[in-house]
């Protein structure tokens, strides 16, 4: 796929210092690495402290692309922002369980609204006390 068509598929919006990243239904490694770059660049330019990755459109996800998404989350945290995944499809979730992937440190939510709530919660606990890790959403 040409660079231009990949570019047109990435549409990151920023709302109140939170980046909203919708992931396309067709997920493949080129696209994810492009998405990764776009998020990190946007994070740098907007100084956003929260990222919400919307995966509701994704119908198929293999362990490799999931690892890439996880790495993306790690990179985002490295830049000092909180990241939450929203709307994993039932089929995707059960397939990932069957693939036995590890997602212990990922934050997930069912709806975007919940996602925001989690991000806000994370921010309050990280500003209140850096050592506090247990709570509702950890």
């Amino acid at each position: 796929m040409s660079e231009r068509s990949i570019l047109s598929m990435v549409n990151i919006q920023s709302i109140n210092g939170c980046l909203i990243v919708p992931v396309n239904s067709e997920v493949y490694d080129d696209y994810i690495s492009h998405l990764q770059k776009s998020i990190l660049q946007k994070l740098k330019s907007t100084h956003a402290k929260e990222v919400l990755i919307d995966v509701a459109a994704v119908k198929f996800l293999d362990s490799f692309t999931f690892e890439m998404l996880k790495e993306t989350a790690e990179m985002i945290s490295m830049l000092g922002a909180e990241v939450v995944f929203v709307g994993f499809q039932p089929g995707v979730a059960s397939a990932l369980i069957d693939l036995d992937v590890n997602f212990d440190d990922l934050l997930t939510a069912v709806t975007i609204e919940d996602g925001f709530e989690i991000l806000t919660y994370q921010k309050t606990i990280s500003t209140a006390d850096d050592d506090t890790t247990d709570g509702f959403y950890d």
Partner: protein
Amino acid sequence: MNMEQKSIISSEIDENLALEVLKQIPTPVMVVAHDFKIIFMNQAGCAFLGKTFDEIKGSYCYSIFNSRHCQTPECRMKKVMEGGEVSTARNEVKINDKTLYIEYTVAPLKDDNGNIIGGLEYIIDITDRVRQEQKLREQSRIIMEISTPAIKLWDRIVVLPVVGVVDSMRAQQIMDTMLKQIALNSSKVIILDIQGVAAVDTAVANHLIKIAKATKLMGCRCIISGISPAVAQTLVQLGIDLGEINTNSTLEDALSDAFALLKFEVVKKQ
């Protein structure tokens, strides 16, 4: 043993007798020529079609049977005529506007030089068997459905009572039901009540852990309730670590935990 029977056994079967045997076989037997025109049909076949042989003779077999395979590459007769092996297939035929299920076996007919000149087909009516199978499938589907009900208990709280035996198929089904429910109601807390589960061993515990993980991936919290003292004992003795999964002994406690997670409060009216 009378004289006639003796003669059948001792002498070679002559052509007339062979034809008679073929006619009397209690299952439909048909012979078609290379152009799919019917050149022979035994009595059972005529009865199956509800026609006399004179009515059928010379017709194309596909115009008589109207089956699913007729005039498609699936037709075993066609395959055999093109040099394929003897084969059996399931098929659906339409005779007198009635759909019947059959199993048919096809063999090539060859002349003395080994050239294929037609095909022999015998048919077994399996309609009753197929109907039974369909009924069975339908019943097992219903049993599956009623065995994993998902009850919406409160706004964004869903309860899944599990009763009976949990094997890997059942666990998969519970997981599917749960994940679908989460997506449907955007549930935030799902309570898995295992009070009715007869025995919890390592396999069942692993299934439960998997289910809890999957719900977490969807962004929902899973509480396992109904853990009896005996189950708690076995789980600990087996050395199973349920990790971060919330567990409770009763559904009541699980519900109050769910309320706490959703920041609900139950207050008695003054």
